[in-house]
C-alpha cells in the first residue's frame, strides 16, 4: 500500500516538474515544434494514401472448359500433371513463374488466380477483379463457334465492369488448344468476337439508361466495334496448355507485373 502511495506521489511530482518545464519554454518554440510534428504526420499519411501499391494479381478467366486450370498449373509447375476436371473453386497461388525459376535475377512472385468458368460461379469473379493488374481471358479455339455467344457475353461483361474500365486493366485474349489441327486462328477469333460484341452493344444498350447489367458501354457508338476502341489495352495471343506453349501468356504477365 505504501509503495503505491509513494509511486503516486512521485508521479505527481514528475508531472509537476514536466509542466513547469514546458511552461518555461518560449511559446514560439513550442508551437513550431508542434507544427513540425503535425506536418510530418500529415505528410506521412498522404504519401501512404496516394502511393497505390501496384498489385501483382493476374486473373485467369474464361468459359468452363477453356483450359484455365491447366494454364495455371503450367505457369506454376511447367506441367499439367494428371489432368483436370471442372473447377468448383478458384485456384490461387503466389509464385515465381516456372520458366523463370532458374534465372538469377530477382523476379517478383506473381499472384495468379484461376476463377472457375461455370456460370453459377460467376460472382466469384467479382471478388478478384478489383485487385487485378491484368486479365487473361482464355478462349477455347477448338470449340469456338458453338460457344461464340457465351464467350462474347462473358468478355463483354468483363470489359464493361467498373473496376476494369476505371483502372484500365489490360486484357489478353488467349486462344487456347492451338495444338489441335482444327483450332481456329487468333485473327479469326478476334474478328468474330468483335462482331459479336458489336451486336451485344446494340442489344444491351437498348435495355435502358439505368442499365443494371453493365456499368459502362463499350467502344464508340456509331462505328463498328474493335478492340482498339477500348480504353484498356486488349491484345490477342495464342497458347497451348497441354503442350506447354505459353510464351504469350508469360510475356503478358511479365509486362504487367513489374519486377
Amino acid at each position, binding site marked *: 500500500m505504501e509503495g503505491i502511495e509513494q509511486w503516486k506521489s512521485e508521479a505527481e511530482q514528475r508531472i509537476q516538474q514536466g509542466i513547469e518545464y514546458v511552461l518555461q519554454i518560449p511559446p514560439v518554440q513550442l508551437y513550431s515544434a508542434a507544427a513540425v510534428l503535425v506536418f510530418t504526420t500529415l505528410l506521412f499519411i498522404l504519401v501512404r494514401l496516394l502511393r497505390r501499391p501496384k498489385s501483382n494479381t493476374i486473373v485467369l478467366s474464361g468459359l*468452363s*472448359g477453356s483450359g484455365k*486450370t491447366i494454364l495455371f*498449373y503450367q505457369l506454376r*509447375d511447367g506441367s499439367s*500433371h*494428371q*489432368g*483436370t*476436371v*471442372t*473447377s*468448383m*473453386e*478458384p*485456384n490461387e497461388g503466389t509464385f515465381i513463374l516456372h520458366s523463370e525459376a532458374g534465372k538469377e535475377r530477382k523476379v517478383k512472385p506473381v499472384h495468379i488466380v*484461376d476463377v*472457375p468458368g*461455370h*456460370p*453459377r*460461379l*460467376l*460472382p466469384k469473379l467479382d471478388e478478384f477483379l478489383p485487385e487485378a493488374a491484368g486479365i487473361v481471358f482464355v478462349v477455347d479455339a477448338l470449340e469456338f463457334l458453338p460457344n461464340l*455467344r*457465351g464467350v462474347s*457475353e462473358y468478355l463483354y461483361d468483363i470489359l464493361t465492369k467498373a473496376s476494369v474500365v476505371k483502372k484500365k486493366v489490360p486484357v489478353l485474349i488467349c486462344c487456347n488448344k492451338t495444338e489441335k489441327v482444327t483450332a481456329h486462328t487468333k485473327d479469326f477469333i478476334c474478328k468474330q468476337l468483335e462482331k459479336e460484341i458489336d*451486336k*451485344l452493344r*446494340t*442489344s*444491351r444498350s*437498348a*435495355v*435502358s439508361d*439505368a442499365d*443494371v*447489367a453493365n456499368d459502362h458501354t463499350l467502344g464508340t457508338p456509331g462505328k463498328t466495334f474493335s478492340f482498339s476502341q477500348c480504353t484498356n489495352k486488349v491484345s490477342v495471343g495464342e497458347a497451348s496448355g497441354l503442350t506447354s506453349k505459353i510464351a504469350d501468356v508469360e510475356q503478358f504477365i511479365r509486362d504487367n507485373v513489374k519486377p
Partner: protein
Amino acid sequence: MLEQLLIFTRGGLILWTCKELGNALKGSPIDTLIRFCLLEERSGSNSYNYDAPGAAYTLKWTFHNELGLVFVAVYQRILRLLYVDELLSMVKREFCEIYDPKRIDYNDFDETFRQLRKEAEARTEDLKKSKQVGRPVNDSKKQGHVKKGGADGGNKKKSEAKGGSDDDDDNRAGHNKLENGHSNGHHIETDGSRGLAIGNGKENASVNVGAFDVSKLQKLKNKGGKKNDTAVSDSKGAKADPKKKATKKNRVWDDSPSQSKLDFTDPVENGNENIDVVAANQGESMMDKEEVVSSDSEDDEDEVGKGSAPNSKKKGWFSSMFQSIAGKANLEKSDLEPALKALKDRLMTKNVAEEIAEKLCESVAASLEGKKLASFTRISSTVQAAMEDALVRILTPKRSIDILRDVHAAKEQRKPYVVVFVGVNGVGKSTNLAKVAYWLQQHNVSVMMAACDTFRSGAVEQLRTHARRLQIPIFEKGYEKDPAMVAKEAIQEATRNGSDVVLVDTAGRMQDNEPLMRALSKLVNLNNPDLVLFVGEALVGNDAVDQLSKFNQKLADLSTSPNPRLIDGILLTKFDTIDDKVGAALSMVYISGAPVMFVGCGQSYTDLKKLNVKTIVKTLLK
C-alpha cells in the same frame, strides 16, 4: 469391378487416379457430375447416374471439406458393388494422412489403394454371405430407402429413355441398399444401351416422394416407354376429373363434337364502338429500373445465435464460447444438425417447399462436414455462410437470360421469336403476358399476341382489350378451336407481317389433368417455341414442386420428338402479395433448373421486374 477412382481438388486438379483400373472412361462422367450435381447443390444425395454412348456408369463421391478434396468412384451400373461407400471412406482416411498441399503426385498411394480394395472386397463378400440369409428383411428396407433415396442428382443430357421398368430389376437382383433410389435420371444417347435392361429402371418412387430431380429432366426427354410414370402418379393425389358434376355441361377436352354454341362474344360491330382506352405511356417498366437495395443491419447474426443457443442444451455457455474462440477440431454432423435444423425451419417459414429445404440442408451438411471451424466463429455462422453461398449459386442463372438479345438474334434470321406462357389456373398468365408485351414494346420490338386460350370464357376478350390498349396486333380464332393450330397460324401470320415476337397465351390447367397436358404438349411440339415460360405464383407453397415436376414430365413424356422441349424459364407472379415469404422462387428454380426470367409485382403494365438474387437470399435467411 470399379471402373475408376479419382481424387481431385476442388480447384480442379486431379491428384491421383488408380493406374490398375486403367480403363478410360467413355464420355465425361466426372465433369457432368460436377456440373449437374455438385454445383447444383445436390451433393447430399448418394449417387449419380451417367449415361454415354456405350456405357452406363454410376458415380459415388465423398468430400473432405477441410482439405478441399473430392473422392469419386465410377463403376458400371449393372454391377452393384456394395463396397464402394466403405472403400471411399477408407481411401479418404488413408489419403488425408499423406496429403500435402505442395505435393502433386502421389504414386505411392497405389499400393495402399490396392490393399484397401482387397480389404473392402473381402469384407463385402462376408457381408453378402450373411445377407443371403436375411434376404426377406431387405424388402422392408427397400421401402424405407426408396423414400430416402428419392433425391438423386441426375444429368441433363438429352437421351432416350431406357425401356426398363423400374420395379422388376429391383426384385430380380438382390436388394442393394446402395442401389435403391439411385436408378433415376439416366440418359442414353444412343440405342446402344438399350441392351442394359437389367440396369436400373427409373426409380419412380422418387415421384412418390414428390422429389423431382433435375436428372429426370433430360432423362425424360426421350420417349421410349416412360409410361410407368403416370401409373405412379396416381398415388400423388386425385387427378382432376373433368367429368365430375353432372349438373354442369362440362367442356370436354377431346375430339368429340362440342355440344352447343359456347361462343358468346359480341358480334364485331359492337366491338369497335367500345371505348378504346389506349394505354399511351404508363412510364418505364420496372424491368428497366434499378433495384433499390436497402442495406440491412447485421442483426441476423445475433438472432441466429439466440435461436441455436437453446439447442445446444448441455453444452453450456462457457464451453461453446470457448469452442468458438479456440476453434473446434472438426465439424461433425451432430454439431451441424441443430444449426441446420434451425435454418431449415427458417426457410420453411419463408415458404420454401419442405423437401427442397431438406435437400438443401443435406447438401450444405455434406460440404461442411469435417471442416475445421475457424476461431472466433460460431457453428451457426459458418452454416449460415455456407447456406448463403449455396443459395446464391442456385439462384444465379446457368445461362444468359437476355431476352432482347435472343429476340435480336431471331430477328436476324427473319423468324419471329415465340414465347409460350404455361401454368396452372389463375396464376396470371394473361396479365403478365400483357406486361411483357408492354416492356418489349418499350424497347422497340414489335409484338403480336396469340389467343390460344380457347377454353375459358372471356379469355379472348381479355387479350383483345390488352391488345387494344397497347395497340398491338392480336391473332385470335375465337373459342373451341384447337390451340395448337391457332398458335401455328399465328406464327405464320407473324412471319408474314414481320412481327418480331409472338406471345402465345394458353389456358390454365392442372398438372394432373392428362388430356389437358397432352394438348399442351401437342402445342409445344407442333410449334417449337423459342421460350417455354412457366408462370407460377409466388403464393404457392409445396405445390410448386409438384407443378413444375409434373409439367416437365408431361412435356417430356408426351412429346413425339427425340428432344422434347421442357420449361425454359419461370415467370414469378403476385410477388407484391408476399412480403418476405419469397421461398417459392427458390423451390421452383431448384426443382426445374430453369432461371427466373421475370417477376410480376403488381397488376398494371409497368409492374414487371427482374429477380435480384442478393435481395432474395438476404430475405430468405433473415
